[in-house]
């Protein structure tokens, strides 16, 4: 049996079902509407596992599922050395969002990472603590800021409504995903021009640590249906 983990609700689930459906692999929920169980038709030996998109990276890394659909941002943020733990099989073309850094629009002197770094130094000198950046993408943001040589900042955790943290004075800047930028503008924030940390989209991943024994043959069939190269795992 080849286990494939897909997002268990919302647009991400619907779009995932559509993407597979368009390629002759029908996924559907079984049981009651809110019950997290599903089935796959069109290819034999595939078991559908309904999961929260945020848990799919971990399940892939642990090898409890062979394949998984989730945002490329989540895989990169939650898995250290992600490319050694999972393989990217196909970008699915939906769920697009950019992970960016945004600051208050009233910061007329700050448009780039370079400006943010300089503002952070002055902020720390004036306030006695490091400039706070609210995010839930700790690894990606920290690696990006380290690579760009930014100092005198701290990351503060924000699992939701991150755009509101600046107005609420719990952060000075944010790092979050955005697609249209509307929520940012509504919260008086602007995006730094060189701060696209990652361009995310829904992606089909394969686990490098799962037991591929019997699943390998199923993978070959499935890959043929989906029109993708079967991964060398």
């Amino acid at each position, binding site marked *: 049996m080849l286990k494939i983990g897909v997002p268990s609700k919302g647009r991400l689930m619907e779009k995932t079902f559509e993407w597979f459906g368009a390629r002759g692999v029908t996924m559907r929920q079984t049981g009651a509407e809110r019950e997290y169980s599903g089935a796959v038709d069109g290819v034999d030996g595939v078991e559908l596992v309904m999961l929260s998109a945020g848990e799919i990276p971990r399940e892939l890394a642990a090898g409890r599922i062979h394949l998984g659909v989730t945002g490329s941002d989540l895989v990169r943020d939650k898995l*250290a*050395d992600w490319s*050694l*733990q999972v393989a990217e099989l196909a970008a699915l073309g939906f769920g697009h969002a950019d992970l960016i850094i945004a600051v*208050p*629009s*009233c*910061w*007329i*002197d700050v*448009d*780039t990472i*370079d*400006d943010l*770094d*300089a*503002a952070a*130094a*002055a*902020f720390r000198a*004036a*306030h006695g603590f*490091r400039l706070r950046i609210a995010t839930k993408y*700790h*690894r990606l943001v*920290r*690696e990006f*800021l*380290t*690579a*760009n*040589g*930014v*100092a*005198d*900042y*701290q*990351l503060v955790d924000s699992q939701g409504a991150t755009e509101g943290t*600046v*107005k609420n*004075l719990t952060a*000075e800047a944010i790092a979050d995903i955005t697609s249209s930028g509307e929520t940012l503008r509504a*919260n*008086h924030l602007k995006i730094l*021009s*060189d701060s696209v940390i990652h361009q995310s989209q829904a992606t089909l991943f394969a686990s490098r640590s799962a037991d591929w024994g019997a699943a390998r043959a199923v993978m070959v069939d499935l890959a043929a249906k989906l029109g993708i190269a079967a991964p060398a795992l």
Partner: protein
Amino acid sequence: MIPAASKSAGRAEAERLFAAFQAAGAVPVEADLLLPAETLLDLYGEDIRARAYVTSDPLQGEMMLRPDFTVPVVQAHMADGAEPARYCYMGEVFRKQEHLGNRASEYLQVGFEVFDRDAPEAADAEVFALFSSLLAGLGAQALTGDIGILMAAVRGLDTTDRRKQALLRHIWRPKRFRALLDRFAGRAPMPAARAALLDRLATGSPEDLIAAAGSFIGLRAPEDIAERARALTLDAKAPLIKAPEAALLYDLLSLQAPARAALSHLRGITPMLPAIEPAVDRFATRLEALAARGIAVDSLAFEASLGRTSMEYYDGFVFSFHGPDGMPLLASGGRYDALTAVLGQGRSIPAVGGVIRPQLVAGLRQLCEGAI
């Protein structure tokens, strides 16, 4: 790759080094395994989170598993140390590894630190010679540097204080340091985003522009925003760092030579960069002190940029000892005078020291003995 020594062989090597440090006059000190995260974060910045294990205590808040001994040892000395002082310590440190591989996330360190106001160059030489003797016979390659010369060169540049401060702040982040220097020296064009920003700032007073930008939110004060906006405009008008001076700094950044030859080279450029003279004099004094302790300074490797990518507190002499390729550093250390001021709450004392990784030394020792 060097075979890892057994735990007991690593422990025995640690005991040997620890005894040698005590024989050299150091007082053994103990340090907690759990350290308050805030102190380390304030010192090293957010990057330390990628390297240290963070846990939380219901009463004390965020704590870190000891990533090194420097902070607790300096704090202990600043709280109630007599002067001068020599300390040594031995114990586990913990480093989170963000990449798959065989790098240890828990290993022993044995260290030696000297806090002494008199003759800092003699203390530098004392520490280096001691480490060199303890690692003798293992084929370890020593490398030395001096961040003080680089800092003196930056302080002596004929440019604005603001630019000097920006460069000094990024001494330990070579990529950003280089980008700033390229910009201040006119070697890199002004980024389009900065040019656009300056154009916009030229359209009105900072106060008007802030008011026009919509609702004011956040803790960063309008005066601070206006102050930086004005500073940017002023900086754009400030002359570039002159080409010959910039060329000397680029030359200095890439200087790699045997120590004695490096000194001659530095003496050669001092007339054009007079601000580095005191630092070069200290370098010369240190070489004499090293030679007096039997170090072959004619062949001792020197790199002016050594230590710039390690923990950002070394501000003078730095050194490291390398094993075969692919092996982590066997030992490293340096001078950290400024750190004692940061942790000393108004007091400071010149300090130099270093650590050895006994498990690596034991592994290398087994390899060397096996080869004989």
